[in-house]
C-alpha cells in the first residue's frame, strides 16, 4: 500500500504539532511491512534558500521519499493558491507516485481545493483528512475562540463569524463554508485527534459516520532516572508557545494572586518562545511581569523564564518541575505537552475544556480548573504545593500516553 502523507511545513523547517504528527506517522509507516509511505511537506517564504529556479516540488535534503512542495503567494482568506503550474506539478506528482491513500494533515500552503484536485487525479485513491484544529470551520485561525471576548465558540454561523472578523460580511462566511464543504466532499475519511472535535464537525455538517478518532501517538521523552524526590512538590512548569491561546498570562496572574496572599513557597519555570506571535496586549502583560520579576531581589523571585527548547531538552526541563500547568485558553485539541508531561511522570494542572478535559481526569491523574480562571488556578497551585500525598497519588494515576505504534495502527485501520 502506497501512502502519500501531506503536511504543512516540514517539522525540521518550521516546528508545529500537525507536521510533527505527519512526520512521525511517516516514520512509523516506514517500519510497517507492506506500507510504502511518501511524505510531501510544504516550504514557503520561511525557507527561501530551498527554492530552486523553476522547481515546484523538490526532494528534501537527500532523504528517501521526502519531498518539498514549494509554496508561495498563498491566499489565507480563501485558503487557496493562485498558481496553476503548482497545481499541475501536484497533479503530476500524484500521477507519478500513484498513491493508494492520500492523507492530508493540513491544506494550508496548498489550498483546500487540492482535496478536489487529488480526487480528480486519483479517482480510486482513499483520501483521508486529519483535522488538527478547526480551520475549515473557523476563519479565526481555526481556534474556535471568539476574538471579541475570548469566549470559546461552539457554533460557526455567518453572523457569528462576522462578529469575530468584522472586515468580512456574513455572506463571506456562508460562502467560505460552502467552498470548504465542496472540497471536503472529496474526502473518504476524516480523523480527529480529540474525540470532542467530532461533535463540532458533525454540527457543522460533516457526516458522523466518516469521522474517526485517532489520537496522536508520538515518540516521547523519558526520564532516564527520576531525580530524588524533593521535600515539597511545589515546582510548577509551563511548556508551550508564549501566544495568547496558551494562557501563560493566566498562570502569571495566579502567581500574582498567591503572592498577594503571602503564599510564596513555590516556583514557576516558563519554557517557550515566539512571544512575537502574541497579541500586543498579552505580550505587554508578559513582558511587564518578566521585568517586574527581574527587579525583585533574587531571593524573592518566583518565576524563571527559560526561553525556548528543542525536543531533546524536554526531559531535562521536565525533570526540574513537579507539576506541568496547561492554562490554555482554547480547545487545546490534543496537547502534546500533556503527553510529554505524562511520559515524564508529571501530573498536570489544566484548563477544563476540549482535549484537556477529555484526557485529564480531575483528581485521578491531574487537576482541572475553569478555563481562564486565575483565582481557581491559584487555589489549585496552592493545594498542589501543600497537600501531602497529592502529587504521589496523581502521579501514580497517570496512564502511559498513546504511543507511535498505537497511532500507526489507528491510521492503518482508517486506510482500510
Amino acid at each position, binding site marked *: 500500500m502506497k501512502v502519500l502523507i501531506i503536511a504543512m511545513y516540514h517539522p525540521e523547517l518550521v516546528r508545529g504539532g500537525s507536521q510533527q504528527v505527519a512526520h512521525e506517522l511517516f516514520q512509523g509507516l516506514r517500519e510497517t511491512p507492506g506500507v510504502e509511505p511518501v511524505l510531501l511537506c510544504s516550504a514557503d517564504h520561511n525557507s527561501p534558500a530551498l527554492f530552486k529556479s523553476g522547481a515546484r516540488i523538490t526532494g528534501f535534503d537527500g532523504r528517501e521519499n521526502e519531498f518539498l512542495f514549494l509554496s508561495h503567494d498563498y491566499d489565507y482568506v480563501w485558503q487557496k*493558491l493562485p498558481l*496553476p503550474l503548482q497545481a*499541475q506539478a501536484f497533479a503530476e506528482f500524484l500521477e507519478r507516485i500513484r498513491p493508494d491513500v492520500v492523507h492530508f494533515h493540513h491544506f494550508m500552503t496548498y489550498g483546500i481545493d487540492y482535496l478536489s484536485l487529488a480526487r480528480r487525479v486519483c479517482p480510486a485513491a482513499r483520501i483521508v483528512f486529519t483535522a488538527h484544529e478547526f480551520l475549515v470551520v473557523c476563519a479565526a485561525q481555526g481556534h474556535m475562540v471568539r476574538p471579541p471576548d475570548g469566549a470559546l465558540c461552539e457554533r460557526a454561523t455567518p453572523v457569528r463569524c462576522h462578529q469575530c472578523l468584522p472586515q468580512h460580511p456574513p455572506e463571506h462566511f456562508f460562502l467560505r463554508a460552502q*467552498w470548504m464543504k*465542496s472540497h471536503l*466532499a472529496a474526502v473518504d475519511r476524516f480523523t480527529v485527534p480529540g474525540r470532542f472535535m467530532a461533535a463540532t464537525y458533525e454540527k457543522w455538517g460533516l457526516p458522523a459516520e466518516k469521522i474517526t478518532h485517532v489520537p496522536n501517538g508520538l515518540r516521547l521523552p523519558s526520564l532516564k532516572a527520576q531525580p530524588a524526590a524533593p521535600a515539597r512538590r511545589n515546582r510548577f512548569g509551563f511548556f508551550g508557545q508564549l501566544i495568547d491561546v496558551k494562557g501563560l498570562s493566566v498562570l502569571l496572574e495566579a502567581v500574582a494572586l498567591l503572592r498577594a496572599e503571602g503564599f510564596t513557597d513555590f516556583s514557576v519555570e516558563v519554557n517557550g518562545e515566539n512571544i512575537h506571535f502574541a497579541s500586543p496586549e498579552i505580550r505587554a502583560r508578559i513582558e511587564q511581569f518578566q521585568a517586574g520579576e527581574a527587579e525583585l531581589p533574587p531571593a524573592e523571585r518566583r518565576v524563571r523564564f527559560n526561553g525556548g527548547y528543542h525536543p531533546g531538552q524536554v526531559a531535562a526541563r521536565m525533570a526540574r518541575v513537579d507539576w506541568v500547568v496547561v492554562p490554555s485558553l482554547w480547545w487545546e485539541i490534543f496537547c502534546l505537552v500533556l503527553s510529554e508531561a505524562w511520559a515524564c511522570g508529571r501530573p498536570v494542572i489544566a484548563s477544563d475544556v476540549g482535549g484537556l478535559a477529555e484526557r485529564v481526569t480531575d483528581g485521578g491523574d491531574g487537576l482541572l480548573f475553569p478555563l481562564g480562571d486565575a483565582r481557581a488556578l491559584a487555589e489549585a497551585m496552592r493545594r498542589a504545593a501543600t497537600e501531602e500525598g497529592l502529587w504521589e497519588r496523581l502521579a501514580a494515576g497517570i496512564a502511559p500516553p498513546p504511543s507511535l505504534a498505537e497511532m500507526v495502527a489507528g491510521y492503518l485501520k482508517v486506510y482500510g
Partner: protein
Amino acid sequence: MRAPAKSAKAGPARVQPLAAPEGAFDEQTYLRLNPDVLIAVAEGKFRSGREHYELYGKAEGRLAAAPAGLPRDKILITARPGQAEEAPHPPQGAVDAIKLSPSGGLYVTGWVHDALDRLDALELYVPGWSTAFSAAALARTRRPDAEEVVKPHLPHALGFWGFIHAGQHLGAGKCNVVMRMKSGAELSLIVAIETVEDLELRFLAFQQLATAHYPGPAYFNAPAVIAAAIGPQLVEFSAMLTRRAVSAPFIERFHQPGRRPLASIIVCLYGRPEYLRLQQALFARQPGAEEYEYVYVCNSASLAETLLKDAAIAHRAHGLDITLILLGANAGFAAANNLGAAQARASRLVFVNPDVFPKEPDFARRHLALAAAGPAARTDLFGAALYYDDGSLMHAGMYFEADTAPGFMLGQGEDVTLLRVEHYGKGAPPDDAALLRPRPVPAVSGAFISAARGWFERLEGFSESYVFGHYEDADLCLRSLEAGRPAWLHDLHLWHLEGKGGARLPVHEGAAAVNRWLFTQSWLQTLRAGLLGPQAAHPALSEAAA
C-alpha cells in the same frame, strides 16, 4: 409732457410709464432717481450726475428732476426699458475644470451666482471649435464652497456641470468661457482645457452625478438633472466605450475535447476574481455539472492574469469546460453577457451572477429537464427563486413601482417620476408556496436568467444602453413581454449573495442614476398601462398564466 397711460392695455394698472421731466436739472434728485449713476459717480466713472445726464442720461430718457412728488401706490418708470442700469453687473462665478477626452467627450464644471440674474448660456470658444451649453442643458447642484463666498439670501444651486459628446476628436488648448446671463451681463474667463482618457472622463461624470450636493434627495435629483441633455449624451458616450471594450476580447478556452454542452452558463465578472473558483467548486458538486459549459466574461482588465491562472486551476481541479473572455475595459453587464452569449456553444443560455450558487443538490439536472420539457412560452425566458445566505427568500420575480417627487422639493418646476424595481418575496420565509408557484411575472432578476438562445437572439439580447449594470434584466423581460412571452418564474432554487458580487463605488451609483432615468424614460408609459404594482394585471401576464 407725454400723455399718461389711459388704460390697462398700455401696461399693468399699477405701473405708470415714463414721464419726461420739466424744469431745471437737479443733481440731488437725479442721483436719487438713478442709484446706478450715484454708484458710478462714487466710483469716479463720472465727475457728477450732470455729466452722466449730458453724456447718456438725456438720450436714455432718464428723468432729470422729480415729478411733483412720487405718485402713491404706483410704480414710476424713470428710464426706457433695457436702459435702467448704468451697466449690467458681470456675475460672480468660476469654472473649476474643462476636460476633454480623445473621442470628443467634453465635461465642464463650475459655479455661477445666478440667484437673481439667471444664467442663459455657457459658451466655450476654443481655437478650431466652439460650443454653447444652454442653461437648461446644464445640471445644477449645490456648492457649499461657493455659497460661502457669495452668501445667497436663499439656498440656491450655484454649481453647474455639463457633458456633451462631440463624437470626434477635438483640439484642446486655451478656452474662452463666457457665462452669459439673462440680463445680457457676461463673465468671460480663460481656462486651460485638460485632456483625460475617455474612461476617466466617463468616470468623472458618473462620480460627479453620484457625489454632488443637490437641493433635494439625490435619488430623484440625480436622474432629474440629466434628463434635459446630459443623460442622452452620457448614454451615447458610454455606448461608444462599450462597443470599443467588446471589440477586441481576449478569449481562452479550457475545454475537454469533444464535449457538446447542453447549456452555457454565462457569468459577468467584475472586481472580485475569487468567484470563478468558488462557483466552479460549488457547481462541480452538482450531478450533471459537466453537461454545462461555463463562460466567464471579465469587465476588470486588472484581473486578467489572476483569472487566467484561476481558470486553469479550476479546470484542473474539476474538469468542467471553461471559456474565459477578458475585456480591456468595463463593457458593463449587458454587453459582457451578450458577448458571452455569442461565444457560448449551447442552445440554452443561462445568465448567472458570480455570487449565485445552486441551493438544491440536483439543480443542474432539474434545470436542464425543465428547459427541455417546455412549452416554449414557459421556458424561453425564465428565472428562479433566489435565496439569501441566511436562508430567507431574496427573489421570486420582480414587479415595478413608480415614485413621484414634487418639483418644488428639487428647486425646479416639474414633478419627477422614477420607476422602481421590487422583488416578490424579499426576506420572506424560504418555503412560501404562493411565492414559489411557477407563474409568469413582470420580470425576473438578471442574477439568474435562463433563456432559449433563439428567443434571446430574437430579442437582440440585453440592451447595451444601460451603463455598467442595472435594469437591463427588467428591460429584457419587458421586451419579451411586449413580444408576447412574459418571463416565468420556475421552482428552481439558488443562493444569491446579493450585492456582494463586485465592488461598489460612487461611479456605479452615478451610472445607476443614469439607468434609472433611462429605464423610466423607456418604460414608464408602458408600465402605467396595468403593469405597475405587485398585482400587475397586464393582459400578457394573464394570458400566459392561462
